């Protein structure tokens, strides 16, 4: 980082109960948006924030057991976990997202954390957000977390891993994690394909090249996307079928 470079633009979503504005010293590269609870942060909004140019997003909530809404902070934790998985897939460093759960009466001032995070993000180097690809990836990730599948799992995670599923069993955290990894990846790829084929019809091979995965995997995703009404065959060029996205609800 060059000393004259601008510090990264950071948006901080802050729980209504953490830090008091009057007491906070806020670095100028950080913007604070108050929400009722850090659990209020719809993952979609976090991705939107990145899409719109934020180079770092910080979520600030109360430390466990201090949450005003019992476990809104823990819900946020789960969402951040999923978001980090998605960010890793998009090519944007997951470190650009940070969840800070603090005691509402931290001795340290907010500016301390803000600076710390600013530096962390700064170290990551120039924002890759200028790259078209990352933006496309973020858009795909956003659609993935807008859709039912990931959201319902996110909403049910606590119940399944900490209490009991419908059969009275508790799903081990690692098992659920592995399942979630697979689903997050699949959803991301599908929405990426959706995004890519919205622009213009594309072939399996082309998609595989862009996505950096095997064409057979792409084809399988396409079969699943057909089942869900996300994609359709547009035309055949030579021996190559081209697919185009269908509008999804």
């Amino acid at each position, binding site marked *: 980082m060059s000393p004259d470079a601008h510090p990264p633009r950071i948006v901080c979503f802050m729980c209504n109960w953490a830090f008091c504005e009057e007491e906070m010293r806020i670095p100028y590269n950080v913007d604070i948006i108050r929400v009722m609870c850090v659990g209020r942060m719809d993952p979609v909004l976090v991705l939107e924030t990145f899409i719109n140019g934020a180079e770092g997003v910080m979520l600030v909530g109360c430390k466990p057991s201090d949450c005003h809404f019992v476990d809104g902070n823990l819900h946020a934790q789960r969402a951040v976990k999923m978001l980090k998985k998605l960010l890793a897939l998009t090519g944007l460093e997951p470190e650009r997202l940070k969840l800070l759960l603090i005691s509402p009466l931290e001795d340290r001032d907010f500016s301390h954390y803000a600076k710390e995070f600013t530096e962390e993000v700064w170290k990551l180097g120039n924002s890759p957000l200028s790259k078209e690809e990352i933006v496309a990836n973020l858009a795909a990730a956003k659609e993935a977390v807008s859709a039912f599948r990931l959201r319902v799992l996110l909403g049910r995670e606590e119940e399944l891993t900490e209490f009991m599923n419908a059969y009275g069993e508790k799903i081990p955290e690692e098992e659920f994690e592995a399942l979630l990894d697979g689903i997050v990846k699949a959803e991301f790829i599908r929405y990426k394909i959706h995004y890519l084929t919205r622009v213009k019809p594309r*072939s399996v091979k082309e998609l595989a090249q862009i996505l950096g995965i095997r064409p057979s995997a792409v084809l399988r995703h396409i079969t699943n996307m057909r089942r869900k009404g996300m994609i359709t065959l547009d035309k055949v060029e030579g021996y*190559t079928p081209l697919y185009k996205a269908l509008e999804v609800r």
Partner: protein
Amino acid sequence: MANEKVGAVLVVGGGVAGIQAALDLADSGFKVYMVDDSPSIGGVMAQLDKTFPTNDCSMCILAPKLVAAGRHPNISLITNSEVLGLNGDAGNFEVKIRKRSRYINEDKCNGCGLCAQKCPVEAIDTYNKGLTDRSVVYVEFPQAVPLRFKIDREKCIGCRTCQEVCKANAVEYDQKDSEITLKVGAVILAPGFEPFDARLKSEYGYERYANVVTSIEFERILSASGPYGGIVLRPSDGEIPRKIAFVQCVGSRDAQLGNLYCSAACCMYSIKEAIIAKEHVPTKLDCTIFYMDIRAYGKEFDAYYKRAQEEYGIRFVRSRVASITEDPATGNLFVHYVGEDETPRVEEFDMVILSTGMQPPKNVEKLAKALGIKLNKYRFCETSTFTPLETSKSGVYVCGAFSSPKDIPESVAQASGAAAKAMATIAPERGKLVAVKEYPPERDVSQEEPRIGVFICHCGINIGGIVRVPEVVEYAKTLPNVVYAEENLYTCSDDTQKRIREKIKEYNLNRVVVASCTPRTHEPLFRETVREAGLNPYLFEMANIRDQCSWVHMHEPDEATEKAKDLVRSIVAKARLLKPLKNPTVNVTPVALIIGGGVSGMTAALELANQGFEVHLVEREKELGGHLRKIHYMLEGEDPQEHLQRLVKAVMENKLIHVYLGAEVVDVNGFVGNFKSKIRLNGGEEKQVEHGVVIVATGAVEYKPKEYLYGLDPRVLTQHELEEKIAKGEFNAKKVVMIQCVGARNEERPNCARICCGQAIKNALKIKELNPDAEVFVLYKDVRSYGFMEEYYREAAGKGVLFINYSDGMKPKVSNENGRLKVAFYEPVLKQEIQIEPDLVVLSAATIPNPDNKRIAEMLKVPLTKDGFFLEAHMKLRPVDFQTDGVFLCGMAHSPKFIDESIAQACAAAARAATILSKKALEMEGIVANVDEDLCSGCRICEFLCPYGAIEMIEKEGKTVAHVIEALCKGCGVCGTACPTKAIILGHFTTEEILAQVRAILREMEVAAK
């Protein structure tokens, strides 16, 4: 008590065979329990794209059968279940069945599918053979019967999403497996087969190479509803292949694997897949089939094979593929094989399809143990030539691929045959366990103004989530003659049926309209409901605002709502004009006429007589037995003549069977249930008989060769003649040449005569048995020893019988050079012509249609194939029916076949006939054509057009007018549309009704547009 028979049958397996058996039994007055391992019925056929040799869409022809089985009042589907044990004896069994939990309450689930749509977890889609995924709560395919979802417990994470979204509260996570015990009189086994596990042929690289797929996977690839949408794609990269290969006999005819049998259907399905692939690919596609023998032995199969070669340019290479390797860079495959010139070759393909053979289903040993039946060494069900439908346990019958690998029509024929066997076992109990429903007397609404009630379904949120249902209800109330309209969460639910009946009473409704899903599945339910409320069932109509509205316009709630209104308006317009229709009934004479006294005719006669029906059996010859009389020994070792004697004795002694020898049927009149026929007896006098059905069992004859010096040289014989000779002990030749396909597979008769290869192998083995040193040459085009016969082919080859292939271009030449019989033929391995001097030349002469067929066909108004065999109603699913109701066929009249196949078909014809004979009166479909005789000009256009011969011309008051034989009319409406004077009215789809619909559907649209 133990001897009391039970009028119910257990059918194990819900594939096409099981369904056919169940329908035949249920239609003839028996209660049927159908147990299937899968969550829905349909078996393998439900996975197929098209069927050979007609290229019919498999699902299109199967789905109506699925629905019929699902809705039949006498059939109980017990899916997702297995048989645990069987106690008791024929006529009175007790079966124990385990119903595995599906975690969905079948009574509550209405198949709306919201659960699957919302399920967040995916599992491998086994129905699509792993080519894609499905949700964890699923139905196998959209047309599944019963349309009840199931949770894949293995993969389910128990997230409760399905339970929460299910508006019918059908999800029960705590559902347990349950055991039920049923009393049945007979059992039919139709568990089908499963494809060979191609991984075991590791040299073909299945699962290692993405572009190596099995044939059943390829069926799914070809299917329009499959994962690739019906376009052939390479799984590795989604490209359309340019060059594909089919490798035959994967898992069949394979000594290494111990699967010595031939799977019988693979050659044909590969040809079909190749043809369909070419049709489904928009680009040029080269198809190559690597085969050992093309076994296109069935009816019209060779013609199909020929079309594949000539019309579609499919390349056939006779070679067993040694191995397949992959180019990892392109995913292309190298097929290593030895060419016909014995040189090793490698050829590159984009995709390879392994034609996997059939093997018995996985759990078959368990099933056999539970039922106490024997399996053969390949774990197929053990049967014998003369009792092809019977297992080792009395009262337990078998059909379909479980007894030996076979294709669909044979499975279906066997299924009906097994049904006949079961019927005979419990014939006295017919009708005792089936429910007869009582309806209130029908209200006369002819003098009433239409009073329409409209019921609009939310279908949970399937409709209501998009279409604003309350708005549509309000709109419906404004339509003329609508006196009542309401919305329902599920109009199909039981409580809504009750509501509809109440509202009919309360508002004195005389027409009912339901706007919900598709009439194809739900119309019968609602018709039943209005009937229960005293209305004629045809006073009901349905608007489809789900499948064709809310589900396909999910992003346009406004437009979808408007469309729903239009559809309701249109259906209401039609409903105003609806008229009650009567289902016509015809009385049935419970007597059968069987033409032909061969093994088929006799078997059919006995089967019917065993069920208590009177039979007239007419044989042209002076003796019963037909073709069987000429058969003296069998491949499998049984004594055919002994069986013949037994059969003849049984027939002659049966009091219900009237045998007419040296007689001929000369005239047949009437229609199903009411035929009047004339039999010209031996003495020349004519006898008239009344009967309800006709079974054609006229058999076939042996071709008298004109080629190969037959008839010119006494040393040239046919196989039958050879057999005769051997039987008489007159055989002493040392060197025998057999020439296959004489009079078959040529220009004149393009089709295979099916049985000659078996005959040749049988006789060759017999020769070797008599004289192991005798030399036998078999000159063949393809050795078509399908099924378990393959073993005998191997045996013969092992014993030194030389099988030498010849092609059409290089037919063997038989000459008599100065009294020396010479046979010259091209030896493909040595690549030279060879001449030998045999003692005998035996011609495998084709089996050709009975020359009498033409006369009989005209008499019965049934069609013949180009070859001159009788043409059944549907090549695939109605192998023993004619399109004309009440007329059936079996045996070689249908096409050449072996004795066991003829017996199975004969039983099948008997079962099909019993579905009619068992009824006092037949109730026909109410939607039939009617002739306004005042308007009819007698032009006969309708008579000419009717595909069912349901229109006849009658004289009425000095005028020739058309008359509809209601019993034959199927209600297609072709006649009415063509009638120049519009004298023919098709019930329920009258011109007025349709025009009213057209006007109503457009009128308001216009208003909306302004």
